[in-house]
């Protein structure tokens, strides 16, 4: 944000710590994508702070050569809030997982989005607990068989996008670990958004939930399974981008260009900046196999941020205040003198 004289390369953000993630872990791709995103941004290196909770993904700060704080389970959103408010000049990134943010830290997650604190939240969603060695998480699909659900889960999952939009989040994007360039691009957009930016990263856990997103990411199905949205562009997908979304009443439907008289003009154009979040919620909720999964920046709207509100209240109160030092406060109101 400040005038930046220095040009950084991805190497400037790589730490000397040995990477302890499993070979093939999707987290590494995210780390690389972020190392490449930061030099594209407008912050000084010393202004970056990475704050994480507990879980595999929460090791992230150790691999960033920036200020970092590896905190306690579920609380990274609250700690990030404090850091950002204390020094709004900082670029604060919360790194969290589906267990950390949506189970133990669910309250802080929703409240931080509601308040619209100007931080970036990277939510690594692998639909499993990795660090505790393979229990289901709040995003595991119903029926998921794990060590703690040998007969399949019976609870219904959260879909982070729906939850976030329900909290009136001002920025929601979805990316996937297998497409690093797209990740880098979305991270840059998340940073430029003023307010809480939530990026859900579908991330493969090779050990405990391998191929959970294969029905989206496999090369054979990818074109039909992913719809990348971009503000102002029609929402097209499929090989040769011949399929698109249309609205039929209050339902999204898939239409094929060239069939039933459908032309590109009939396809819905993505409006990420629309205040009304109804369509954003519908997009965030689309699921395989009936629909493609929507990726990219689904919602990006401008609303006052919490940190700005805190600062401007301080400014207003200071202007109007007649008591401006402790000595003045101490003798304010009723006092008497013993002579």
């Amino acid at each position, binding site marked *: 944000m400040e005038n930046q004289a220095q040009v950084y390369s991805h190497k400037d953000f790589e*730490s000397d*710590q040995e990477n302890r993630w499993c070979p093939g872990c999707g987290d590494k791709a995210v780390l690389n994508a972020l190392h490449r995103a930061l030099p594209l941004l407008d912050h*000084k*290196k*010393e*202004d*970056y*702070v990475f*704050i994480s909770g*507990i879980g595999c993904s929460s090791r992230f*700060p*150790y691999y*960033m*050569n*920036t*200020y*970092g*704080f*590896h*905190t*306690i389970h579920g*609380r990274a959103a*609250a*700690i*990030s*809030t*404090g*850091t*950002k*408010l*204390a*020094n709004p*000049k*900082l670029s604060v990134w919360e790194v969290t997982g589906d267990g950390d943010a949506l189970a133990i830290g669910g*309250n*802080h997650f929703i*409240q931080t989005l509601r308040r619209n604190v100007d931080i970036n939240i990277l939510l690594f969603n692998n639909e499993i607990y990795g660090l505790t060695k393979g229990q289901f998480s709040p995003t595991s699909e119903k029926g998921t068989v794990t060590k703690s659900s040998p007969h399949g889960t019976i609870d219904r999952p959260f879909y982070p996008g729906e939850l976030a939009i329900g909290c009136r989040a001002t920025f929601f994007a979805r990316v996937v670990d297998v497409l690093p360039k797209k990740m880098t691009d979305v991270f840059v957009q998340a940073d430029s958004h003023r307010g809480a930016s939530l990026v859900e990263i579908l991330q493969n856990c090779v050990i405990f939930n391998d191929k959970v997103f294969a029905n989206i990411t496999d090369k054979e199905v990818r074109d039909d399974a992913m719809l990348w949205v971009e503000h102002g562009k029609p929402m097209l997908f499929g090989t040769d981008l011949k399929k698109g979304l249309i609205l039929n009443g209050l339902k999204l439907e898939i239409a094929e260009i060239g069939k039933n008289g459908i032309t590109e003009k009939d396809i819905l154009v993505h409006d990420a900046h629309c205040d009304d979040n109804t369509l954003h919620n519908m997009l965030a909720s689309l699921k395989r196999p009936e629909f493609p999964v929507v990726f990219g920046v689904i919602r990006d709207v401008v609303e006052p941020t919490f940190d700005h509100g*805190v600062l401007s*209240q*301080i400014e207003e*109160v*200071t202007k109007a*205040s007649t*008591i*401006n*030092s*402790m*000595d003045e*406060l*101490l*003798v304010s*109101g*009723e*006092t*008497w*003198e*013993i*002579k």
Partner: protein
Amino acid sequence: MSTAKTQELDKVVIKFAGDSGDGMQLTGSQFTDTSALLGNDLATFPDYPAEIRAPQGTTFGVSGFQVHIGNVEINTPGDIADVLIAMNAAALKVNLTAIRGGATIIVDIDNFKHKDLEKAHFDSDPLEDGTLDGYNVIEAPITTLTREVLKDSGLDGKSVLRCKNMFALGIVYWMFNRPLEYTEHFLDTKFIKNPDVANANKKVLVAGYHYAETIEVLASNFVIPPAQIERGVYRNIMGNQATAWGLLAASEKSGRKLFLGSYPITPATDILHELSKYKQFGAKIVQAEDEIAGICIAIGASFAGSLAVTTTSGPGLALKSEAIGLAIMAELPLVIVNVQRGGPSTGLPTKTEQADLIQAVYGRNGESPAIVMAASTPSDCFDFAFMAAKISVEHMTPVILLTDGYLGNGSEPWKIPNMKSLPDITPPILKEGVKDWEPYERDAERMARLWALPGTPGYEHRIGGLEKDFLTGDVSYVPENHEKMVRMREEKVQHVANFIPELEVYGKHEGDLLVVGWGGTYGSLRTAVSQMGTANIAHAHFNYIKPLPKNTLEVFGRYSKIVVCELNLGQFTKYLRGIFPEITFMQYNKIQGLPFTTDELTTKFKEIIAQ
């Protein structure tokens, strides 16, 4: 013209009691402020129900305000009242056991009708059945007379009734020869936008005063001459307000902006309210979504360089335990204020107790030493909040400050300090441009690491809850390093003993009995010890719990018997026994949600000395 005489008194305890909506807190504070202006020493305690608007006339809806004034040193709000103002039957009912034999009881006779007595669970009329034999009962038709005074005021019935507390106050002002000017001025200011209401209240106040004078409610009225008080400018201050101001003062002194992360909880919420008023000092206040978020937001702010504080009461401290451990591990400054209340669980939210000491000292996973301090009077909440902040930032580790509901809601006159008279606070902030710095290198004296703030170029580093290497702060699972770090964190807390005052005793330098207390029992213990006459007795009061003052053992050695008095089952006793196994500690405990009374203490002390 009245023929009543005036008698001089040393001290008196007055209790104002009525329905929650009767304005008893305001009435009591007015009497307090007027007495303070006349130079009396005093202490007060409000006693109000947990219910916000309990049904009218019921015993659980009674709100009380007790004030103890004197021309002698006053350390407590008083055990039992010499004068009770009971605005209804329920107020009399709940206070019957809290008044001295022979006390003066002023009742609003208009609220002692059959229905009122029934609601208060009186089987028969206490004014007639002998219940009040031996008391000096003044039956005043307060409600009727208030209506009469205001019949032409144009105020509606409800507003008229709201003035009746001023009638009662007028009576008490006459009884104790207090001028009305202060309260008249207060009413003018309070109702500046509503002069009709101000005038009505003033009229009723004067009417009450004249009523007392005319009917000569007492054969003589009283005067309590000014106390011998140190010269200076004074104000009344409540404990929670003093805590808030102490933190603000520490912020100004240290140059670190105050940052409060807090969740409302009785009886700590007033600190949040108070700090929320002073944004002009740059204080950032977040009312968080829960207790855990409150402390975590504060920890995040501490990482970024703020003077970070979280305020709570017992159940909230339990929720914050894990995060306190994080601050200890990350070696970040943080002040945790626990305004203790009766426990366990939800317990007695509006009553006082000292049962969180063990929780504060030990209540975390792993070896996680925190500095623990305790305030002992409403006004010294200022000093200890200031010291908690100073020690926390200078030693780079969390401090838990224990106060309690009795201190937090109590008030007393306070000689206003000058900011210049307060000690400096020097946070160990790492200045730009230092080479060869390591995140966990520490100074020999305090063993504090340096505070390297995000935003400072060149010091990018990572901290966290995993065990750290002794020097680099990198994650380390090396067995020897873990033991070294565990010992270091404990030693770091013990080093604080070199920076705190030694323990002083009140009374005999050596002798038969040392009365030991900590925190909010100071007033009761000091008063009781001072009333022990020629006994070979002394009082030692602890404000520093962990670490203890360095001369503690030496002090203990000077007395043949030691009794530790606490409002719990003996938590400080247990703690002291662990540290000084060679010393025999007797204990005296009370767990009723109430403070000690002077009588029960002096009786106990005499018994111990006689043994």
